[in-house]
């Protein structure tokens, strides 16, 4: 880089440097005096300029939480780091440094303007988090692959791009290529792209762009599908019946059941399994649908409840506001009357009246609040009863459906056992030995073995069903408890906040009155 060689060695970004910079760049004149008097907290600083300071390493910036604009140009920084806490950053200038790769910008989601001019970057990447990016300056770098442009297509807000004096800008097709692949771009290399150029570029690269677009659309569609599936699953999860709308549970029963799988090769078991599966799935689907319905019901119940509570609170607030407005009107006029009054006795009397007014307001507001608390408590209790009933009913019904599953399993087990024993008998008689696979054959050693195998399979199945049931019940119960807790907690919070608010207001009023009193007495 052809930067004037600085005889000064690299400097560290320490507290002193930062303080100095903040002081220099902070408010000036009268405001500056105030600022000096009070001191400036780093987190209040919105803009910071640290150029020509021979900084080698970005450091110590974590306090500047609210920084909007940061200039670190003309230093000797080699690595982008230490910017993780600056989430509000909008403007970042890192030009004229020695950066080789783009990195460390993943938390800067609000960044709109990024300058990396005159560095040693050879590849554009790691910018994915910068969804609001509008201006990107990458001139005078070492970008040599045209494909980097395609990476920039993801920035929907990008309007200004500078890539001059890179190896790629030497390419004959450079301008056309960028115009074609970044159609929303307005300025390229400090010049406005005219419509004519745009059209030409589009025509020139139409074929490849169409292909690219097609691919992007496919990707997009895929993503959307994925998203939709995820949402669907999420919805089922909130109904606590995910994966019950198919044979998932049934399949999982057999997934870890090696004996069962082996036994399914027995003659007659195939059909048996088939009917068993059909019946089982039907019950699962029943549970699933019932679950969704119940979920809907619970949601409606909750919505109605929140709406009513909200309305009640609003109404109450309105009343409170009206009371306060009325009070303030009166209070203001009596305050000014007190100011104008000269007779000390009268003043005292009026002040007394005023404080009486204030305490009256306090009483009124508190009464309102207590009233609301009582009303809400009643409503919340009613809601709690209802929702608990609902959950209980749901659990009960699901359990009875699950019991049906178990019955099916028991039935199946008996059938299987029957078949197994008859098969064993046949094998003992030597009728059909050859048809069976070897590992299955190994089970038919004696009666105990086969009964154990069938029993093991049965146990696994029952376990799975029980587990699923337990999971459902636990989750819905905990959901219910959490919901109720939250409602109670919210109400308590609300109440505390309101009481605090009222007290604060009353205190303020009272202190205002007291101040007036003091002032008057002083006068």
């Amino acid at each position, binding site marked *: 880089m052809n930067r004037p060689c600085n005889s000064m060695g690299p400097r560290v970004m320490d507290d002193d440097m930062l303080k100095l910079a903040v002081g220099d760049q902070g408010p000036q004149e009268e*405001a500056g005096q105030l*600022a000096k008097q*009070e001191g*400036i907290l780093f987190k209040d600083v919105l803009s910071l300029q640290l150029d020509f300071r021979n900084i080698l390493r970005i450091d110590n910036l974590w306090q500047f939480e609210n920084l909007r604009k940061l200039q670190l140009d003309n230093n000797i920084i080699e690595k982008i780091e230490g910017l993780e806490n600056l989430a509000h950053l909008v403007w970042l200038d890192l030009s004229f440094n020695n950066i080789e790769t783009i990195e460390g910008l993943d938390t800067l989601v609000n960044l709109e303007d990024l300058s990396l001019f005159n560095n040693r970057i050879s590849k554009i990447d790691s910018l994915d988090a910068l969804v609001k990016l509008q201006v990107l300056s990458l001139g005078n770098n070492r970008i040599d692959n045209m494909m980097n442009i395609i990476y920039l297509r993801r920035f929907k807000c990008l309007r200004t791009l500078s890539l001059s004096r890179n190896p790629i800008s030497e390419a004959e097709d450079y301008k056309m290529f960028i115009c074609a692949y970044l159609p929303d771009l307005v300025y390229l290399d400090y010049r406005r792209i005219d419509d004519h150029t745009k059209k030409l570029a589009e025509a020139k690269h139409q074929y490849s762009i169409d292909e690219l677009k097609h691919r992007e659309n496919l990707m997009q569609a895929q993503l959307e599908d994925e998203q939709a599936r995820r949402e669907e699953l999420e919805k089922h999860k909130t109904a606590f019946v995910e994966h019950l709308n198919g044979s998932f549970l049934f399949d999982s029963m057999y997934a870890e059941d090696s004996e069962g799988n082996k036994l399914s090769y027995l003659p007659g078991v195939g059909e048996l399994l088939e009917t068993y599966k059909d019946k089982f799935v039907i019950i699962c689907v029943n549970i699933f649908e019932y679950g969704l319905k119940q979920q809907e019901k619970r949601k409606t119940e909750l919505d109605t409840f929140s709406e009513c509570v909200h309305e009640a609170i609003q109404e109450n*607030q309105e009343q409170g*506001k009206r009371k306060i407005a009325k009070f303030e009107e009166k209070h203001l006029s009596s305050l000014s009357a007190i100011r104008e009054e000269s007779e000390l006795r009268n003043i005292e009397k009026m002040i007394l009246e005023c404080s009486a007014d204030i305490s009256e307001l306090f009483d009124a507001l508190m009464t309102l609040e207590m009233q609301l608390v009582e009303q809400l408590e009643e409503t919340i209790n009613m809601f709690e009863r209802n929702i608990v009933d609902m959950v209980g009913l749901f659990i009960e019904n699901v359990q009875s459906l699950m019991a049906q599953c178990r019955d099916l399993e028991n039935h199946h087990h008996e059938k299987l056992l029957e078949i197994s024993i008859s098969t064993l008998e046949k094998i003992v008689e030597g009728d059909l030995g050859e048809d069976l696979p070897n590992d299955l054959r190994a089970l038919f050693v004696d009666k105990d073995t086969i009964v154990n195998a069938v029993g093991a399979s049965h146990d696994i199945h029952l376990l799975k069903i029980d587990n699923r049931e337990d999971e459902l019940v636990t989750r819905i119960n905990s959901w219910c408890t959490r919901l109720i807790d939250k409602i109670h907690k919210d109400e308590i919070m609300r109440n505390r*906040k*309101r009481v605090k*608010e009222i007290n604060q*207001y009353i205190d303020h009023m009272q202190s205002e009155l007291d101040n007036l009193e003091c002032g008057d007495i002083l006068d």
Partner: protein
Amino acid sequence: MEVLREKVEEEEEAEREEAAERAEWARMEKMMRPVEVRKEENTLKQETLRDLEKKLSEIQITVSAELPAFTKDTIDISKLPVSYKTNTPKEEHLLQVADNFSCQYSHLCPDRVPLFLHPLNECEVPKFVSTTLRPTLMPYPELYNWDSCAQFVSDFLTMVPLPDPLKPTIKKEEKVLPKKYTIKPPRDLCSRFEQEQEVKKQQEIRAQEKKRLREEEERLMEAEKAKPDALHGLRVHSWVLVLSGKREVPENFFIDPFTGHSYSTQDEHFLGIESLWNHKNYWINMQDCWNCCKDLIFDLGDPVRWEYMLLGTDKSQLSLTEEDDSGINDEDDVENLGKEDEDKSFDMPHSWVEQIEISPEAFETRCPNGKKVIQYKRAKLEKWAPYLNSNGLVSRLTTYEDLQCTNILEIKEWYQNREDMLELKHINKTTDLKTDYFKPGHPQALRVHSYKSMQPEMDRVIEFYETARVDGLMKREETPRTMTEYYQGRPDFLSYRHASFGPRVKKLTLSSAESNPRPIVKITERFFRNPAKPAEEDVAERVFLVAEERIQLRYHCREDHITASKREFLRRTEVDSKGNKIIMTPDMCISFEVEPMEHTKKLLYQYEAMMHLKREEKLSRHQVWESELEVLEILKLREEEEAAHTLTISIYDTKRNEKSKEYREAMERMMHEEHLRQVETQLDYLAPFLAQLPPGEKLTRWQAVRLKDECLSDFKQRLINKANLIQARFEKETQELQKKQQWYQENQVTLTPEDEDLYLSYCSQAMFRIRILEQRLNRHKELAPLKYLALEEKLYKDPRLGELQKIFA
């Protein structure tokens, strides 16, 4: 009571003529009560008949010998067609029939008033009443339905009392033949019960009101001396009866021609009917009118109730059944039989009246001379045709406090086509409050302006069309000490600004015309909630107490709170004990915060907020000042507009729009010139010469050459003649001038100054003429050879002289 001086003819489309019997002309010779009473009850009872269609007619003023007001000079009889002055044999016959009928009638009913059958027309020729009606369809949609049509007729009519209120001495008629009716009864969706309750309530209120009013009225009436009409029941009137049936008219009703209102046949103002007629027949009412018209049955086909004059011309469809037992007629009299036989062969002759034509101007003018005054009880309504008044005034309603109409209560004036979009001016005389209403489009977007005086800084309210204004101002209220403005839809969410002013300070130094604005004591501004900001940073109200150097801020209330943050800045700049300027101290900003925040505690923050507010205060003051200026401007503009009261003229109004008129005339002129030019170019030079030759034959070469030579020599001769003519005139003028000059030189001494002036002006004119002649001559000399060559060329190319061409080719 009154008789109509005009004859209104109501006409209908020919196709609808057979429907004519539906509308009848009722004439009543007993009469209505005094007009004033009637006016009070002007309610339209039959709103459902809204769509009754009607043809209206032009109004011709009939000259009646008895009424000197309308003497012959109002109408030029000589220009009227023959049918006005003579009767056709058929009409004579009809008159005889009528006479005969009348004789029989008076014989049978000696007690009743003689029939009104054939009054004299404007030419003093007796005409049968039915023939004065001529159904005509007019091209104005407004005349298609009965209500607007009746309104039009009533606008045109002016009431003039008869010399003898009991006798329509001369036969004067007014006819309206409404015929077709369409009816669209509005669907009634109101609850009957509610209506009843409402009515009950209203009735109660009204009863009380009435009682009160009546007492007062009685008192007033007493004073007024409302003498009972001695002629009650004897007055004569004519009005229109519309029969149900056609055009979906559900029931019969009356239309009074003076008011254009409809009345139910049950209305008690109509005391009775003597006879009815339309353009086809004439009926006498044979029913008893003891109970006004309430018991009358309007079945014209029933010969017991309605005695007809002509048989068979139109049996009312109502009567088909009764038609069959028409024997009833015969019971009466044998005489009737003969008459009827005679009548049977007789048709009503065609109307002698000219077809009515209403020009668009006349239609627009409506009333005679475009002006009409209607006197109501305690009110006067004046109407004018559009553009009649130069200030666009079209109607004025004046209401009075007393019956004598001397103390004006309020005046309402309606305007049309004003360039300043003024629509209505309302002047309340008791409070002296004037209110102007504007239609959208005023240059200052005014909507309403109410004021007591046009002086600035007085009580006034100005409302605006806020969407037409950049600043979204809706309303500005002013009192001598305050100005309040209401805004909507502004990007800074300002909704309200109130400024109070202190007394003006006398400035001793400023002697210039520089304005001396009143000092602003206080500015209050309120803002709507800005959803982009958190509530505790969104100012709801800020008050600049300019005089106290104090700024109060009130913030919006957060969604879940009942109190709002407040902040008060004291902008006093003070100096501390060491003489340093105090920039900011904690007691300069008193704040109450609902949710205390850390950064607002900082002096720096407060200082910056205060600086910002200071700037805002300056801006607000400037805004107030600008608003004051704007008021001045509006007042000035209004005064100018009132003085100029320019009217707008639609570009489609070809008569009034000067520009379009000019343009049209220019176009016409151009067309004309173009036409002339074309004619000229088509002038056939050869025609006179060709005419000498036998037609149809092809020219020989010799003939062609001769023709050409003749034509050319003729043209040459003409050019020479023209030159000579110009030359001769030129010489004549020159000689005359010389003579005059000679004369002048000889008599110069004795000439009076007037003669000298005369001479000088003559000289200059003569010189001008000479110069022009000279120019023309020169030009002619220049152009003549060219014209000659052009003609030669033209002839050469003329296809008829093709022979010539061949040779030369």
